């Protein structure tokens, strides 16, 4: 069987000597680029920097809460920490990193040479990046250039009227508003680009019914961004008008309504969760089949479920407001809408299960992360069902149970799937594999840390611990639990440091990957690693959902069956 294994070294595409260039030239290159791959990478790099910053904030929060009556940070500092942590993680880590992957992968997967609007793409990236910088500039210039710095301390959902000029004097709240506003412009721009690219630049034969599920999910995500970010932007304009021109949108003294802000914010806020989680589904949809060596089970159902989740997610926002006093009728409606969303979500989980069933599962690091994703997302979904039962939510909302629940979604599902995606597509981006052993250390430390933190975080919520408190009394039964949670946080941090080290080290010392290291089936694996600036030398034509399967199995192509 001498011909079994082509020797990968034979196609080493990484040039060994590169002409040295001036730093300035390199910078100029990146600043002026309109290439979707470079912009995608910039998105990811910038998100990773903010991930580390927001991670440090999380660690400071956990040190403060590790023991009761702690004086590690002052209440003001603590309130700023959780505000910045939440805002950063949602707007300057979650969205950009997922848009980065989308930018990089969507054109490659649909056989396009670039995004539909390359310059708009660059603009969207830069404006979100400047938004992040503006937010952190508040630490220096929170009261304008005249006074001492003060970061916003209003919580990431900035409930009115705490944001009113009376209760938040100075400019710290404006920093929050304006930074998120800028990031919103960038998000809409990128989403617009992704949707247009998907609809208008598909290669020949790439019908909608043949698009990789990742592209489908990014399409739905893009649609959600339009309808979700718009309301937030509108609400922020109102808030700015209130603060700068003295209007009364959220001014309760002049008859304004605090609840209106809650509605507007959560009309954005809940779809936002799906904006973040749909790409995570997208990664899992690509990775699980490849490592189970099977086609995705129930492709049409998966597409329908994704679109269904997109639509239903627009009608569930007020489940964040069960304790606001919506009245029995309002509560009942939102209970129903929220519970219904578990049906398409369930379909997804079952279809992944069926994809794995009967396969030959290879537990490489990307797949390990996806397996962890499946379990953790299952638990996150089930705690979500608990929260959707409004009376249960009257106890749990704004408690540590909710914190644990949404971190289960954001960390246990999204971040975990993202790590899988990093290990999976790294070889495509750099031409080199990430180190497996380090990857496994990263995996286990991260997963164990995660479960220490967020499994135990549910319990203080059941025992009456509300969110956003900078300290608590001893004797409430929260002490040991919080200590475990804090320690788990640090275990996770170590895992992530290993990941970052692996990311940097493998860039120069990883094994050469070749263009298709995972024996995968979608179009991005048909181009060299790293892909040339034009992606495809010849524009491809596809006949099925898995074009590379057809190439690899000419005697038994997918196109016969779809």
């Amino acid at each position, binding site marked *: 069987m001498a011909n079994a294994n082509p020797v990968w070294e034979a196609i080493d595409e990484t040039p060994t000597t590169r002409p040295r260039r001036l730093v300035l030239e390199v910078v100029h290159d990146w600043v002026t680029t309109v290439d979707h791959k470079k912009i995608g990478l910039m998105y990811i790099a910038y998100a990773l920097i903010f991930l580390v910053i927001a991670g440090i904030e999380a660690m400071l929060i956990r040190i403060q809460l590790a023991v009761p009556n702690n004086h590690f940070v002052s*209440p*003001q500092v603590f309130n700023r920490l959780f505000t910045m942590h939440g805002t950063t993680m949602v707007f300057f880590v979650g969205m950009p990193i997922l848009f980065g992957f989308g930018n990089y992968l969507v054109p490659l997967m649909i056989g396009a040479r670039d995004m539909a609007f390359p310059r708009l793409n660059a603009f969207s990236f830069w404006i979100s990046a400047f938004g992040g910088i503006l937010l952190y500039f508040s630490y220096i210039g929170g009261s304008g250039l005249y006074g001492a710095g003060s970061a916003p301390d209003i919580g990431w959902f900035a*409930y009115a009227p*705490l944001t009113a000029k009376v*209760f938040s004097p100075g400019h710290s709240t404006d920093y929050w508003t304006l930074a998120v506003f800028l990031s919103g412009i960038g998000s809409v721009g990128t989403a617009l680009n992704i949707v247009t690219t998907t609809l208008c630049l598909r290669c020949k034969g790439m019908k909608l019914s043949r698009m990789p599920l990742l592209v489908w999910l990014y399409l739905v995500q893009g649609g959600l961004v339009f309808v979700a970010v718009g309301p937030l932007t509108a609400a922020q304009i109102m808030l700015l008008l209130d603060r700068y021109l003295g209007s009364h949108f959220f001014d309760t003294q002049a008859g304004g*309504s*605090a609840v209106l802000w809650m509605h507007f914010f959560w009309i954005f806020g809940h779809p936002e969760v799906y904006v973040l989680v749909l790409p995570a589904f997208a990664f899992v949809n690509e990775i699980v089949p490849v490592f*189970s*060596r099977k*086609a995705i*089970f*129930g492709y049409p159902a998966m597409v329908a479920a994704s679109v269904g989740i997109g639509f239903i997610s627009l009608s569930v926002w007020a489940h964040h407001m069960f*304790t*606001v006093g919506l009245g029995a009728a309002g509560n*009942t409606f939102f*209970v129903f809408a929220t*519970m219904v969303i*578990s049906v398409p979500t369930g*379909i997804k989980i*079952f*279809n992944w*299960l069926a994809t*794995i069933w*009967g*396969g*030959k*599962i*290879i*537990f*490489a690091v990307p797949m390990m992360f996806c*397996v962890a994703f499946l*379990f953790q997302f299952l*638990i996150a979904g*089930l705690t979500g069902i608990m929260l959707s*039962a*409004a*009376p*249960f939510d*009257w*106890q749990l909302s*704004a*408690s540590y149970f909710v914190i644990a629940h949404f971190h289960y979604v954001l960390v246990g599902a999204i971040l975990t799937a993202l790590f899988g995606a990093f290990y999976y597509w790294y070889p495509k981006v750099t031409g080199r594999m990430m180190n497996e*052993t380090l990857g496994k250390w990263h995996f*286990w*430390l991260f997963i164990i840390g995660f479960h*220490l933190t967020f499994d135990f975080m549910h319990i203080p919520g*059941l*025992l*009456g*611990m509300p969110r956003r*408190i900078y300290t608590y*009394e001893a*004797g*409430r*039964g929260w002490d040991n639990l919080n200590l*475990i949670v804090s*320690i788990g946080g640090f275990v996770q941090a170590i895992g992530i440091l290993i990941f970052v080290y692996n990311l940097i080290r493998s860039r120069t010392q990883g094994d050469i990957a070749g263009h298709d*290291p995972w*024996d995968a089936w979608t179009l991005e694996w048909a181009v060299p690693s790293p892909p040339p600036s034009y992606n495809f030398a010849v524009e491809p034509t596809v006949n099925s959902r898995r074009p590379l399967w057809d190439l690899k199995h000419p005697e038994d192509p997918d196109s016969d*069956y779809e």
Partner: protein
Amino acid sequence: MTPALLQRRSRFATPARALFCGMSLFVGTAFAKSPALSPTNMFDAAATPAHSIVGLSTLVLSVTLGIFLVVGGLLLYALIRYRHRPEDSTREPAQIYGSNQIELSWTVIPILIVVMLFLSTTRIILGTEAIPKPASALDVTVIGHQFWWEYRYPKLGIVTANELHIPISDPSKPTPTYLEMSSADVAHSFWVPRLAGKMDVIPNRLNTMWVDPPQPGLYLGQCAQYCGTQHAKMLLRVYADTPEQFAAWAAQQKQSAQQNLTNPVAAEGREVFLHSACINCHTVAGTIANGRFGPDLTHLASRDTIGAGPIKNTPENLRSWIDDPNIMKPGALMPSMHLNQHDLDVITAYLTTLQ
């Protein structure tokens, strides 16, 4: 690449084993000193709304646990059963695209579960929010302030702060307490887990909730909606009294502050108090102090705590609090009045007489 990976399966297990051992050891020791039962455990329900929530929670928890066991078990089984073993051939497994019948089944079963959960949830919602208020109910107006609670009993003519007294409710002739809630500044949330779920306290809006604890006792809780710097120390103390205790307490609270002080130190303290800025924010019934911005002090000494819960009401603590509230509760809106030591002493002496 892939096959080489499979050979190194043992390496994959090593970090896992080491870390798992560490974790179980750690969790074991942490729980060896089993934490005392929490005074704010939502499952330890002490009133009807909390009880019905516990009932619903149990149902939801068992349903979700069942789903978790079934789906998680299947997932685990599939992962083990269908893992790629080193001795397996590298041939691709059968490619299966889907199955209408199984997909239909796992769409319909969740819908059925949802319908069932929805019906039971609706019933609890209606049973808590949409039932008529009995005539025997006691009304209390709750007003949230940055970082303390104001309680007004309109029918009894009582105004107090931070410590809510309610009568117990005998299930055979219920006397529930209805809380009408609003806020003077930003949004807060009233949460006493053993009595009921939380209800937000929002400015320019009136929310209602009710509680009916059958057993006397002290029920703890705290503000559950982020409301600014000292959100953490905006605690709730609800005292459920027997009817006799409650009547006695109400009678005492209705009185004005004592006018003829026998203690000369306290009398001097009163003069200092009434001539300082204290009266701009605080009320002491029967004197010229009628500020509304801070808590009513008429019966301050009858309360167990100061500073909205976190500080025991002792003369030393009270003195320290008056000296500079920001030491015990940084961010509290009461400013330090920069009183001299003598004035501090006499004001403290005066305030301790406000029974």
